């Protein structure tokens, strides 16, 4: 089967691990970590082989990267065109994601060997990690929209399980529920969107759907744009609903509220799921359906503005938070906002496709430096036993390796050359500059904010004051340091990978736009922000507090996360519960339950009234029997005729 049949093993190996550890976790115990890691190493190796084979040997035909379907199994056939298939598709985006997911997951597996050591539910943890990796790989390789949806829910479940891993902590339980409910709510939109698209596009297969809709005068396109609901065309509705699903998973405003709370999970999990892989699923979804999205200008506007607003809001909030993981969570949200608006401003082909390429490039580099940041945070939390920045300080001598890694990752996310984030962020800014000036200026401001809050974090953790506690143990085992160093190398080198010639919107090579003149402004501004952060946070000083009190209510609003959580609580407690929840409960209790109880009651009464027939007297039974026979005889002889 065109040489990619082995792709099936990439998701199946982690699934095997999940089954093994799920069933025999108690007997395997500590060996389960090793088993999971080894199986995943196999997957990673295969994914590298697949990416190499795709990008360098047979993906390119006439200078255009094409889609290759490794294989398809038709699972449920609804009508000649519409079926739910299980298929594996490799194209530039999925090949890139494959490598990212496998690689980051492997790093997290290795890191967890040290981080989770001694945990009582060690095997369960690895089982969940494997389940997540399986689902994410399935999602990445899926060639059918419904298959995407199935795996989409599976990653949601594994995320839920891992956020609630410490189920004895009420906050973790609440966080996992919140994440599940919010994303589930968004997925409802996704499901309806899929159905709308399948109804008008006549297919659930992504490639066929694009083929049906993308031709400007095709029957499907015409029917979809003319049909409408409430003055908005069916195409717009379908895409908007799908985008709601993507926004929920990618923590875009206003569905982002679950992501900061999701940090209750173990830190390596945050690195894997809530930084590098699952939360970019929304971006990935838009990218896979990009030819359809680019048909509709208004939806692209929605994507753009959702992305940029999320990026800005998250960056503002991140400046005020004191929990190290929450700062990183908001920075994740902000960076995903970047990817999202870069997709939104992108055109569909040629030079206009710069935004698409930049978005994918940023997704690629962000996965490395953000998982590095989270793993560093894991080491720090492991060392300090606290999540709060104010408990840290002066750790640079105690955690030398982590210090270097964290510094490089901060430089990368701030867009300082020559680290990975610089290249991708410059591409995004450049695309924004050409396409949409207001977005460009907001993005630039966000980039400056990013540099500020990342270095606020860096200086608070590693400088600021003398370490307030005596070290009880070292930096951690080799299994914890090794992934840091590997990811550090990736963070330094990933920017030089020529993504532009591989992952583009139309499969053709895109000329790179490294323009030194253009890069001056962002880099200088970011450097200034870093210097400001250094001045404020390198030594203990009163300036930050003074600045905060000078800003007064504005600061208060930002540090309370713009009261978005409170708004949600208000809506649910004051509107949803009394006006929808209570009536629904009443109907359930009185009408639904009433019907069921009524039927049971009637049956009971009826049996009460006839039970006397069962007297135990043989002779009366015989009498019934003979009367019956006599009755039948009369019926057959005189009445039947």
């Amino acid at each position, binding site marked *: 089967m065109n040489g990619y049949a082995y792709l099936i093993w990439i998701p199946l190996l982690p699934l095997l691990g999940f089954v093994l550890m799920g069933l025999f976790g108690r007997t395997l115990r500590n060996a389960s970590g090793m088993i999971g890691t080894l199986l995943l190493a196999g997957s990673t190796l295969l994914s590298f082989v697949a990416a190499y084979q795709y990008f360098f040997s047979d993906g390119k035909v006439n200078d255009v990267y094409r889609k290759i379907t490794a294989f398809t199994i038709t699972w449920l056939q609804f009508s000649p065109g519409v079926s739910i298939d299980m298929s594996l598709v490799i194209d530039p985006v999925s090949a890139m994601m494959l490598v990212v997911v496998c690689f980051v997951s492997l790093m997290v597996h290795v890191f967890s060997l040290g981080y989770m050591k001694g945990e009582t539910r060690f095997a369960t943890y690895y089982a969940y990690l494997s389940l997540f990796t399986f689902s994410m790989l399935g999602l990445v390789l899926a060639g059918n929209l419904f298959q995407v949806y199935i795996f989409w829910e599976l990653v949601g479940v594994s995320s839920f399980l891992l956020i609630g891993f410490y189920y004895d902590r009420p906050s973790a339980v609440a966080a996992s529920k919140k994440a599940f409910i919010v994303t589930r709510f968004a997925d409802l939109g996704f499901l309806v969107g899929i159905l709308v698209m399948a109804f008008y596009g006549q297919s659930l297969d992504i490639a066929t759907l694009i083929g049906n809709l993308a031709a400007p005068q095709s029957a499907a396109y015409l029917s979809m744009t003319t049909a409408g609901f409430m003055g908005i065309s069916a195409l717009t509705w379908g895409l908007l609903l799908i985008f709601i699903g993507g926004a929920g998973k990618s923590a875009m405003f206003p569905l982002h509220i679950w992501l900061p709370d999701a940090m209750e999970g173990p830190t390596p999990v945050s690195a894997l799921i809530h930084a590098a892989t699952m939360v970019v699923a929304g971006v990935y979804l838009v990218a896979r359906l990009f030819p359809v999205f680019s048909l509709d200008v208004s939806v692209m506007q929605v994507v753009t503005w959702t992305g940029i607003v999320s990026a800005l809001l998250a960056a503002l909030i991140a400046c005020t938070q004191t929990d190290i993981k929450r700062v990183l969570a908001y920075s994740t949200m902000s960076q995903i906002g970047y990817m999202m608006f870069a997709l939104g401003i992108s055109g569909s082909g040629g030079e206009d496709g710069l935004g698409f390429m930049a978005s994918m490039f940023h997704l690629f580099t962000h996965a490395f430096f953000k998982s590095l940041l989270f793993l560093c945070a894991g080491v720090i939390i492991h060392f300090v036993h606290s999540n709060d920045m104010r408990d840290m300080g002066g750790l640079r001598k105690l955690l030398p390796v982590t210090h270097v890694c964290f510094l490089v990752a901060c430089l990368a996310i701030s867009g300082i050359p020559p680290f990975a984030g610089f290249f991708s962020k410059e591409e995004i800014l450049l695309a924004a500059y050409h396409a949409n000036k207001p977005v460009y200026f907001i993005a630039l401001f966000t980039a400056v904010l990013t540099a500020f809050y990342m270095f606020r974090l860096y200086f608070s953790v590693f400088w600021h004051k003398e370490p307030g506690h005596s070290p009880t143990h070292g930096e951690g085992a080799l299994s914890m340091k090794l992934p840091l160093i590997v990811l550090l190398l990736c963070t330094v080198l990933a920017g030089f990978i020529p993504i532009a010639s591989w992952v583009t919107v139309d499969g053709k090579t895109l000329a790179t736009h490294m323009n030194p003149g253009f890069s001056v402004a962002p880099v200088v501004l970011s450097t200034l922000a870093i210097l400001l952060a250094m001045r404020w946070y390198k030594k203990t000083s009163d300036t930050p507090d003074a600045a905060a009190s000078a800003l007064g209510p504005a600061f208060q609003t930002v540090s309370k996360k713009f009261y978005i959580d409170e708004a949600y609580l208000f809506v649910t407690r004051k509107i949803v519960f009394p006006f929808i929840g209570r009536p629904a409960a009443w109907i359930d209790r009185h009408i639904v339950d009433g019907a069921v109880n009524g039927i049971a009651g009637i049956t009971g009464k009826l049996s009460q009234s006839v039970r006397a027939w069962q007297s*135990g007297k*043989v002779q009366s039974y015989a009498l019934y029997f003979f009367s019956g026979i006599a009755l039948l005889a009369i019926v057959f002889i005189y009445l039947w005729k």
Partner: protein
Amino acid sequence: MNTVPLSHILFLSTALFFIGMYGLFTRRNMITMLMAIELMLNSVNINFVAFNKYLYPGKLDGLFFALFIITIAAAEAAVAIAIIINLYRTHRSIDVDDATDMKY
């Protein structure tokens, strides 16, 4: 032979059947009930033999059925008496009204 018409024999068997039925419903002693059942079976036998003789004189099917029923009746009597003996052991009675445990 022709002096006895079929209707006489049918009258005999019907009478026998309803006598048996009357016994089955009115007697409380199980042995008597068993005997009543035997009466009913025999009335059926008479029917078989009579119809065979009057309607299909050249065949023997009705006689065979009668023989089968006699055999089965013997076996049934053995089973019934075994049940009655067991009942007597547990209830110290063979009155059918004393054995009404199987009710609601």
